Each structure stands twice: as C-alpha cells, then as structure tokens.
C-alpha cells in the first residue's frame, strides 16, 4: 500500500531556524544603518557630489562592522533601512528605489563571504579575521557597493557621468569606512590606556 508523506518545504524548514535573536539583530542593524545615514548626511552634507553619492561616507564602515557582528540578519536589517531612505534619495526612480537597498545591504555580506572564505557557512566566531582581512573586506565591500550602484544607475538611466560617479562612490565608501575604523581603533586604545592606568592607581 502506497503511503503519502507530507514534508515541510525546505524554505519553510529554514524559516523555523529563525529565532527572536536574529530578528533583534535585524532591528539593531536597521537602526544603525538608518542612524549612521542620517548623521552622515547631517555632518558631511557639503561633500555630496550627486544624489546618493558622498565623498565621505562612513556609514559604509558601520555596514561592514554590522555584517561582521550580526551576519546575514545584519545584512537584511541594513537592506530594510535602505528601503526607508531610498525613496527620499531616488524619488522618481522606481528601479533604483527598489534595488539599491539590496546592493547597500548585501555588498558587505558578499565581501565577508569572499574574504573570510565562508563558502559553506558563516564562521561563528570570525576566526579568520585580522587587521589585514578587515582592510581587504572594507575595500572589496566598497567595490561591490560602488559597482552595484553604478550598474543600477546605468540600467535605469539615472545619472550622467557613470565612471566619475563610480570613482566618487568608491572613494567615499573607502575614505568613510577607513576613517571610522581608525577612529574606533584610537577609541579602543585610549580605553585600554585608561583601564591600565586605573588598575595601576
């Protein structure tokens, strides 16, 4: 006698593995993405060369750090925050509004997978991360982000001088992220010195 077994589709089984902590990661990442974009626009508004392109864009550094800490949920949270801001940047460009957030959110995640050699699964504790891989990751993520945005701009006919826009976006992402990373480094070293002097006192 033939028996019919009904199994849950693979996609639904994957959804079962989502825990509340991953949703929390998404919310934190979305808040970080949105907050950093707002602060950057407020502080460096004079460095904006074109709509959505800033010569100092440190939210890119925040995105890389967020994806390193929170993984794929972090990337999805950043994409979500991108959906909240893209209508104000690309007001009449429907394709840019819909697709650009995916590029912004997933570029650092793709760079993480490539640089940290995460072919099969995410490394839970970032064993392969060191200062050199961190710089490589930031650079590759900036390339993916600027390249993806430029391709979208070409495809949707948005913008004029695409090579110049690509260079400006790449420079902004790199400069902003490196400024953030070295700023954080100084903060951490100062914190260590304060702790050390407090222990000795």
């Amino acid at each position, binding site marked *: 006698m033939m028996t019919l077994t009904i199994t849950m589709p693979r996609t639904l089984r994957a959804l079962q593995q989502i*825990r*509340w*902590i991953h949703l929390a990661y998404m919310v934190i990442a979305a808040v970080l993405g949105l907050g950093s974009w707002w602060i950057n626009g407020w502080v460096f508004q004079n460095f904006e060369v074109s709509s959505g392109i800033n010569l100092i864009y440190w939210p890119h550094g925040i995105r890389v*750090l967020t994806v*390193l*800490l*929170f993984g794929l949920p972090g990337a999805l949270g950043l994409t979500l925050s991108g959906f909240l801001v893209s209508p104000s940047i690309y007001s009449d460009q429907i394709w840019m509004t819909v697709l650009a957030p995916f590029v912004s959110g997933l570029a650092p995640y793709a760079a993480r997978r490539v640089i940290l050699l995460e072919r099969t699964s995410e490394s*839970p*504790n*970032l*064993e392969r*991360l*060191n*200062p050199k*891989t*961190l*710089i490589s990751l930031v650079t590759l993520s900036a390339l993916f982000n600027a390249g993806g945005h430029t391709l979208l701009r070409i495809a949707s006919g948005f913008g004029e001088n695409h090579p110049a826009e690509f260079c400006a976006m790449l420079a902004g992402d790199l400069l902003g992220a490196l400024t953030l*990373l*070295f700023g*954080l*480094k100084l903060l*951490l*070293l100062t914190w*260590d*010195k304060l702790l*050390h002097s407090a222990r000795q006192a």
Partner: protein
Amino acid sequence: MSKDTKSELLSLYFRFTALTDSLKGLYGGAELTPDLEALLQVLCSHWHAGSPLSVRQVMQFERLGSSATIFKRLKRLRQMDLVMLLEAPDDPRKRQIVPTTRALDYFSSQALAIRAASA
C-alpha cells in the same frame, strides 16, 4: 533564555572580541615586529621561570642586538603596553620587567592558534 540563544549570544561576544582585536591591530605603529617579538619572548620566559629580568640584565643579551638597540625596543614594548617595570620585592631600587595582561593575552592567542592548527 534557551540554550540556542545563549550559544548565539556567546558567539556574538566572540565575534565582538575578534573585531575589537582586529581594530586595535590596524596599521599605525602598533605592529609587533619579529625583533620586538623575540625580545618579548625572552622577557616573558624569564618572568615565567620566576626570575624577571632587570633593564640592565636584558641589555646584556648580545644575541638580541646592541644595548642601545635593546633599550630602544624595550621602550617600544612599553609604549605598546606589552611590558611594564615593577620594583623588585627584595630591593626597591631594582626594577624588573614584567609582561602586562595584553602580552599574556597575546601569548594565549598564539597558543590557541597553534592548537587549532595542530588539531
């Protein structure tokens, strides 16, 4: 809190420490060169054996370089917060070189890396 959530939060903590360690090690003069590492190993092995070296004693280690070079490297290690000078318990005039927690953390991470590589 479930076991999975605890495990995930623990992973988050390890990712955070890996990230802060990488940030602290970014270029800008804080790199531990092989010369500095060799000196640090000598200082730490003597400290571990229970006989920490004084500045005068370490400057006599000719295989590590001239006394001026060793003194310069020792100063660099102090700036990098890897060693510190403490008064000897038996003689307050004598100052001994002892590793800081940062140096001990460094050797612990080296040991973990070796263990992981050999596993």
